[in-house]
């Protein structure tokens, strides 16, 4: 009789570890919302770059369709839901997060990641304008209110007082609309608390991600793509601030001990540009790890550090998110990350789902490569639709990048 294959047992996660805590917070964001809905409270679906301080201060539970779509895609459900919404008539060309979310709105169930149906939707287009139509469709189909904050693309390097005035008025309008719809009340004192906590989370996050300045890096950059979910959805919560501080402590300890969550020898350090290719996370990370390539930094390391002193500062911060800034600022932020973190190459994910980001990536990346004197390689993929990625094509490009970095170091 053939011996049964012995499955390698994974050790139980340490409940005091940042990874465990952050995982719990991310899961709780969904379960809290489900419980709130069961209790009869109104819950919302919220865009990732909508000011989380607003629902947090009002005491409203919200969950994030983008985060849900990423989870569904990472767990293998992307194509099924995309096909569902395409069958409804949505174009295959639109963002896969939108296709998955619109399908979920109809199906109301997905074993990969469930969340309660919304009573209102919170939309902010500082991430993109596809978001507007996506949320309008949800609002119309479910006959629920849509709160819309318009933060236009900023062609200037700095945020102007006029822009802050425009955004501030809309933030207050959104707050008043939500007070009317939900019966909750805004509290300046509560906002101050949320602001402090959000700042604390952000400072810890920025400091933790800045540990990539050490060589070798004390962490595998792919970890950031997971941990970032908490910065998006829960940075105004005290437990998130504590977990991020634990993360920072762990990374500093790793550096002291010479260990890392990147297992294996770190031979090359790259920056990864773009959203993760969620349906192919294993293939994309393995293709790098097997070659000793550590993705030490990404723009997300910078993007979710919201630090501000007052309400206007908050308006400025939301006007300065990665997809709302001009090419020069986008480029300069990344050049700084590359220099600070001793990056040797840039791997660009040309993401079919995100036309906006993929549109500016090509020229921005070319300028980064020139400024930092590093090779730049791109591959085609998608943040949530598995049909837009080819493992063999990705592998050849990553190997080509590695061979250039190797030659630059004086290897063959």
């Amino acid at each position, binding site marked *: 009789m053939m011996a049964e294959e012995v499955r390698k047992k994974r050790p139980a996660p340490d409940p005091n570890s940042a990874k465990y805590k952050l995982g719990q917070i991310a899961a709780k964001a969904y379960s809290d919302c489900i419980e709130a809905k069961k209790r009869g409270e109104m819950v919302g679906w919220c865009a990732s770059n909508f000011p989380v301080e607003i629902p947090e201060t009002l005491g409203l539970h919200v969950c994030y369709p983008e985060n849900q779509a990423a989870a569904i895609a990472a767990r293998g459900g992307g194509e099924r839901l995309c096909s569902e919404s395409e069958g409804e008539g949505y174009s295959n060309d639109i963002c896969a997060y939108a296709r998955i979310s619109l399908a979920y709105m109809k199906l109301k169930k997905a074993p990969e990641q469930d969340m309660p149906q919304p009573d209102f939707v919170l939309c902010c287009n500082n991430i993109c304008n596809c978001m507007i139509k996506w949320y309008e469709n949800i609002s119309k189909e479910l006959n629920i209110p849509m709160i819309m904050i318009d933060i236009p693309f900023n062609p200037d390097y700095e945020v102007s007082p006029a822009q802050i005035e425009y955004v501030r008025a809309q933030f207050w309008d959104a707050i008043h609309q939500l007070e009317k719809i939900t019966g909750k009340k805004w509290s300046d004192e509560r906002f101050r608390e949320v602001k402090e906590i959000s700042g604390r989370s952000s400072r810890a996050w920025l400091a933790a991600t800045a540990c990539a300045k050490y060589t070798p890096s004390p962490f595998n950059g792919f970890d950031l793509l997971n941990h970032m979910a908490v910065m998006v959805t829960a940075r105004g919560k005290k437990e998130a601030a504590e977990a991020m501080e634990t993360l920072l402590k762990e990374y500093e300890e790793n550096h002291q001990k010479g260990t890392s969550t990147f297992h294996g020898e770190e031979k090359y350090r790259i920056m990864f540009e773009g959203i993760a290719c969620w349906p192919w996370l294993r293939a994309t990370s393995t293709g790098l790890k097997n070659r000793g390539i550590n993705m030490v930094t990404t723009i997300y390391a910078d993007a979710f550090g919201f630090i501000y002193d007052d309400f206007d500062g908050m308006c400025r911060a939301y006007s300065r998110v990665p997809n709302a800034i001009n090419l020069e600022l986008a480029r300069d932020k990344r050049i700084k990350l590359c220099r600070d973190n001793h990056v040797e190459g840039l791997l660009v994910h040309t993401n079919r789902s995100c036309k906006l980001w993929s549109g500016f990536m090509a020229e921005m990346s070319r300028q980064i490569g020139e400024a930092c004197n590093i090779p730049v390689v791109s591959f*085609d993929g998608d943040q949530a639709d598995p049909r*837009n990625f080819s493992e063999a094509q990705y592998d050849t490009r990553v190997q080509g990048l590695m061979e250039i970095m190797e030659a630059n170091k004086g290897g063959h």
Partner: protein
Amino acid sequence: MFTLGVDIGSTTAKAVLLKDGEEIVSSSIVVATVGTDGVSQAIENVLRESRMKRAEIRVTVVTGYGRKTYPNADFQVSELTCHAIGAHHEFDNVRTVIDIGGQDAKVLSLNEEGRMVNFAMNDKCAAGTGRFLDVMANILNLDISQLAGEAAKATAPANISSTCTVFAESEVISQLASGIKIPDVVAGICQSVASRVAALVKRVGVREPICMTGGVARNDGVRRALEKELGVGITTSERAQLMGALGAALYAYDKAK
């Protein structure tokens, strides 16, 4: 010292047996690749032709899309690096290499020392590659080797506007049906490949001298159309289709030294 380079491509398997990093003792191109005995056939051919045994080979390097399926190599290197090495060996001052293979088109930028410093490849789509030419030759009832000769006879090259190979096939059929002459259609096909590849070249940067490698380099129609599109001369070699395998054998020699 003998080294072996094996290039397992999407449509053909190639092998080059190299002596002392300089002399090509034997070479082979087999139109059968991964999943067939094409690879072992190519290797057997070079060994038989040179009357050598496998054990006499010091180092073997494998490249191409099928490189991971071949277990008997000492090193596995991307076809990007191998084509760069092969082209630099053939034309020692080349700065841009255009490789058009069966399903792949790539453009490599080399520095003064012949090292690859940048590259661009076609993504998702095989239009502009050897596959496109195969499909077209089939509709025209021509052998692929006849395309260049036909293109040279063109007086008014047809315009093929479809970027998709399948839609372009329909377009070519309707052009033939409306009486457009075969040489003009073939010239249009070559032009279509050239304009897609030229876009890749411009992304990487047009730095002379430029050479073409890969199977499609044998098609003078495509090469001339590319020269016209880029406004520069493009050289090639009779060994164009072997550049990947040659580069692999040269890499092997470097490792063996």
